[in-house]
């Protein structure tokens, strides 16, 4: 029993250490996500939206690959929230789809192919 107790304590300790280290998020987290778009207008909108989120330090969106490279303070902002904001501006991301109404209001050149994205 004592051994069991000790094991439990050790396990709890180990977990808490693991939890703690998970809590300590990076101040300059670097990641890359897919964001749908076509042109320079999209580029402006996507990077502007990303950078207007508190904690986002750096954002560049590459037109040919549709990859958005982000550096953000993971203690201040969650990647999901950044994606949500970008989707709300009209651009589908890995995790979120833009509202149809916003998509419809995008300028002509930004009408990316949504069917292809769904596949």
């Amino acid at each position: 029993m004592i051994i069991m107790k000790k094991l439990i304590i050790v396990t709890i300790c180990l977990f808490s250490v693991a939890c703690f280290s998970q809590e300590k998020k990076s101040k300059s987290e670097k990641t890359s996500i897919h964001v749908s778009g076509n042109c320079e207008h999209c580029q402006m909108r996507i990077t502007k939206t990303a950078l207007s989120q508190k904690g986002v330090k750096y954002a560049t969106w590459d037109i040919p690959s549709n990859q958005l490279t982000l550096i953000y303070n993971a203690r201040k902002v969650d990647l999901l929230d950044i994606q949500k904001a970008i989707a709300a501006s009209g651009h589908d991301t890995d995790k979120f789809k833009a509202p149809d109404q916003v998509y419809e209001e995008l300028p002509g050149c930004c009408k990316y192919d949504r069917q292809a994205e769904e596949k």
Partner: protein
Amino acid sequence: MKYSYLFLFLSLSLNVTAQNVFEGQVHFFDDNKNKQPLEGATVYWDNSSLGTVTDKSGKFSLPVSEKFKILVISYLGFDTLKQHIHNYDNQQFLLTSNTDEQLDEVVVSKRKKTIQKSYFEAQNIVTVNSAELLKAACCNLSESFETNPSIDVNFSDALTGTKQIKMLGLSSPYLLITEENIPMIRGASQAYGLTFTPGTWVESIQITKGTGSVVNGFESMAGQINTEIHKPLSQPPLFVNVYSSVDGRNELNTHFAQKISDKWNTTLFVHGNQRTQKNDKNNDNFSDNPLSKQINLLNRWQYIDAQKGWVGFANIRYMDDHKQLGSLNFDPSIHKNSQLFWGSEIDTRRWDSSLKIGYVFPELPYQSLGLQMSYSQHDQQSYFGLNTYDINHQSFYASFLFNSIIGSVKSKFKAGVNFMHDTYDEQVVLDSYKRTDYSLGGYFEYSYDNLDNFSLVAGIRADSHNTLGVFLTPRLHARYVVAEKNIFRGSVGSGRRIANIFAENQPLFATSRTININSQSDGVFGLNPEKSWNYGLSYRRIFNLFSRPGDLTVDYYETHFQNQVVVDWENYREISFYNLDGKSYSKSFQVSLDYELWNNLDLRLAYKNYDVKTQYNDSFKQRPLLAKNRLFGNLSYETYPNDNNALWRFDTTYHQVGKQRLPNTVIYNNEFSDSYSLWNAQITRVFSNRFEIYVGGENLGNYRQPQAIIDSDNPFGPNFDSSIVYGPIFGRKLYAGLRYTIL
């Protein structure tokens, strides 16, 4: 590089249905020239939110509206098609696009503008690229501005053939002229320094109106000119340029580039020029341009390790320039120091070395460190008739820069320190002057950009200088965009410098004037340092007229001197230097228009007005030898390249230079010069990417300033003066040259 031409066919089969839907189909030719439907092309009405994407069979359908007439179809790797839809009959459209065979690189076929004005930057910057520099093929940096309305080019005197540049109505000492952001044309090199950088070395030139950034020091008062030299990484293995003109000037430029390893590249630039022929078209027994000989060598090394984030440049350069000017009969070995014939020799030797190291944090692309160091030694030995002028200037410059962000890349900053150390040793006729200047300064420059319509650069620097003391230099630039394409800019900033009165006014030695320095303080030469404020406003409008792009810019700048070393030529027997006692300002207005008249036919027009006045000892008056009004026009045309990239280029430039106030001399009494015009033209035949030839002419109207040298018959008499120059000395000049590149 081999390009396969791909054709994008757009066939529109129109079925106007009850809902007014516009249906069509997009095709392209694949590598085997088979017609294929293009899936995923974006199709939309211009300036609308009505858009769609083509399906698997290349088909699309779009709602039709009376308001929208221009259809835009775009797809990566193809030229965007813009088509005015007039009628809905069966139409076919053909698009060509240059992409390479693997389709991994898109070649943009739209011509890049040879002069680019800043759009996103807060500062008013004009970038001149090497294609623009080719429009006036001759020959060095001082002649690189002939096709650019922001800079005025004047002759500095009637003998040396040297051109002097002015911006916002102020001459080059009031500009900070840098080479790759290291201060370059200053001190001893102020008079002839621009002729020491051959034109073929230049990759691009950035011209900033207003005081510019605080990063490169406190010396810019009216503007900054930065020259970027070709980078070894992007140089072809061999480039050869040969130039020859009817006035006997011959130039040879060769660039050898070598890739040493993945990380190291080097280029050796070799320049030589000479003029062996004396010309006297105006029959004053003085040579219209000097005999000259120059050897100029530059070796550059470039290091790049993109993964680790290190970049570096090392440069070493040696220049030897010899000029002989004056009377046609003058032979230096016999007549030097005699009064038989008037003559002059200017010998300059210059060493330059510089090192640049940059580090970009691999994980933080917005954060970087930079270190720059340069050392130069400039030695000029010269005599002008019986006047000796020697100057030795050694200069050391070091700068450390840190770039990063505050919060996000919308707010960036630069912070750093510079150190400058200059020693001057001058022999001026019988007097010698020695001095050392050194300064240490720190700066902080903040820039904000809301990524939309507003940006700002605010900088401040604090310097401690051994004669200027401790002082602050603030500078502010802001940009505001009203309704996309209407850009307003404003700037304010201060600048300071020590006037190198002899080095900057060397034409005075080729006169009989006595030098009069009105020493009033214990500053350099007994004169106070110069200090000024510059304010500017600029408006730029980008527009489309008859479906062709145009660009209108209106600039207004004022420079006010709180102190200035007044250079007074008003008394024809002397030249005086004294501290400003009263007002001195330069107000400049410029309106310029760029417009594409027809496919590949570009027009550039500008009007400039200068009001530059100074309080002289006798009165408050207009600065002499400066045209109040100037008109500028440039027309250039380029044919479409054929399969071999062969094409023709035509370029012509027109300058109308208004009347200029002339200082009183024995021949001028409260007079103004004539207004005159200059007309230059050039034709280039490009045979392939490797070989091209050009012929051209400067001053085709053959205008010459009458009596450019005052009392040339009596050069050792009291009235001799070659400094009152307002126009060209040499008339029409024709030239030809070739460029050969091994790719």
